């Protein structure tokens, strides 16, 4: 199995905007003292192991970021910072907002959501 083709053009560091957002959120929350980076690394590592157990070897692309987000959600739940039911409700509110917003207009949550 070939890992890479040498000399191919360098891809951008984040292939999707949400990868960058999840990354920044994780760094920022750590810098604000909510957890240390080694605590994060341990959590993330455990998530990678768990994901590998469920779906086999990880390719370091979309699966890597899925594990990253899963680890972040788990950590924030554990620390009482983001309750899963509230996160789910907000996710649905964002989904509804996208579906209700005309194409090209900024998407915003309604007050009270």
């Amino acid at each position: 199995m070939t890992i890479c083709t040498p000399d191919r053009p360098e891809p951008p560091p984040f292939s999707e905007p949400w990868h960058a957002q999840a990354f920044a959120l994780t760094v920022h929350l750590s810098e604000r003292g909510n957890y240390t980076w080694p605590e994060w690394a341990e959590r993330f590592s455990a998530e990678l192991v768990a994901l590998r157990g469920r779906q086999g070897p990880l390719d370091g692309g979309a699966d890597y970021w899925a594990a990253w987000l899963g680890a972040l959600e788990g950590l924030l739940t554990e620390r009482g910072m983001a309750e899963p039911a509230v996160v789910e409700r907000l996710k649905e509110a964002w989904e509804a907002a996208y579906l209700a917003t005309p194409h090209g207009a900024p998407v915003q949550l309604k007050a009270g959501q």
Partner: protein
Amino acid sequence: MPHDHHYHDHDHDHDHAVLPPEPALRVKALETLLTEKGLIDPAALDAIIDIYQNQVGPQNGALVVAKAWADPDFKARLLADATEVVAELGFYGRQGEHITVVENTSERHNVIVCTLCSCYPWPLLGIPPGWYKSDAYRARVVREPRAVLAEFGLALPEGQAVRVWDSTAEMRYLVLPMRPEGTEGLSVGELAALVTRDSMVGTGVPKVPA
């Protein structure tokens, strides 16, 4: 967990905003909640993204390597205390708190990996490439480094040992590759242009001057 029935790469009729993928909505939900709680500053998130998307990358590490090639005193200090020396060049901060530089010689080639997750010297190399984060690399480079390096097109002489350095959240490594022959008289800037990202991870060697 795939949840793609709302992905809008199909073309039937709709006039609303394009719905982002499910994980993107989860991230937005987290951001909304944490902002409401006053736990995050959205402007700080944008600043972090800008740094890693646009400012930090292997060009930083390449400058360090080129300076080490050009200046024996700099090199000696770099190998003794990389963290402090690269900080003097302005390369410090996240994931750069503890950096060790390991020098390639004709007797030993060095390779870095993070078997735990994806620890990497961000201030010097930026965000790691996909392959550095893949199981194919993380697990195998420890077990069969020569085979993995061969897949990168790197065939090492039999007599050159390979040492694999496992990065952690506390210690990160940078490989100081061997200076290519035929580079006498080049400026630091010209030398830096020969230093590839892979050569500083140990999965490649520097370019040779054209």
